[in-house]
């Protein structure tokens, strides 16, 4: 069933580059979900996203890679700050950011099973089929494709963003007090 041999994983220099990115990436992901300090967890997430951007460069997806750095890593700063403000993270170890051990063990079982399932499925389906030599995708081609083939999903995404923008403001704004409404100052 499993047709992967060690040679497929270590045959080309690119494989070593992949491992040099992937192993720290998994470590960073591990620390995101286990770190006992909110700020550290956010920084490890930044590391993980940076690693994924490096993988995109390896695969020749320059535009996506830099978009990840710009949008994702740039936006995560906001999460970072909310993490600090909401949990009032003092420097040092924060207690009770995770559920008790009983819950964590069952969570580990579920996610472990999921990983094994996907891994076996991938090995069965693809074995050691290799990715063809990656050419760098031209930005112009991506633009062309978005506005021709994928124009409807693109419009849908833009509507989703608009809805999220309005929704975010409506949810997060402080409700005006009755006195403010009486004084006609119920705007933002």
């Amino acid at each position, binding site marked *: 069933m499993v047709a*992967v041999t060690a040679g497929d*994983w270590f045959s080309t220099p690119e494989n070593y580059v992949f491992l040099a990115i992937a192993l720290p990436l998994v470590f960073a992901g591990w620390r995101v979900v286990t770190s006992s300090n909110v700020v550290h967890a956010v920084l490890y997430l930044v590391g993980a996203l940076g690693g994924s951007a490096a*993988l995109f460069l390896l695969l020749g997806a320059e535009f996506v890679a830099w*978009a990840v750095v710009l949008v994702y890593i740039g936006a995560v700063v906001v*999460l970072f700050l909310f993490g600090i403000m909401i949990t009032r993270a003092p420097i040092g170890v924060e207690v009770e950011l995770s559920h008790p051990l009983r819950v964590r063990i069952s969570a580990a079982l579920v996610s472990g099973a999921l990983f094994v399932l996907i891994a076996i499925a991938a090995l069965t389906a693809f074995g050691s089929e290799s990715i063809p030599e990656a050419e760098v995708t031209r930005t112009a081609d991506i633009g062309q494709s978005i506005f021709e*083939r994928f124009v409807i999903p693109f419009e849908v995404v833009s509507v989703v*963003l608009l809805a999220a923008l309005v929704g*975010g403001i409506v949810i997060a704004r402080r409700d005006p007090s009755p006195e403010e409404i009486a004084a006609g100052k119920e705007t933002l």
Partner: protein
Amino acid sequence: MIITQFVILGAALFALGVYGVLSRRNAVLVLLSVELMLAAVNINLVAFDAFVADRIAGGQIFALFIIAVAAAEVGIGLAIVLLIFRNRRSANVDELDLLKL
């Protein structure tokens, strides 16, 4: 490079994200774990895009869409967390049991 490497890496990150969502108590950290899962999906999409040498770059474009949707998700998610924190003085997901009688 073989495609299985990327799929297994994606699976590992996704599983870590699932673990995080299930095991974290603080709502901000739950959001972080969701981000991790989305990053895993992006890796898979771009890897398969390169694997099938897609002429219209569908995988990359859907990765871009996921980035946009993730931004929306973070915005709304944080707005909700902020509101909950304002009302309950806590951002722990297990204390949000008002609907339980």
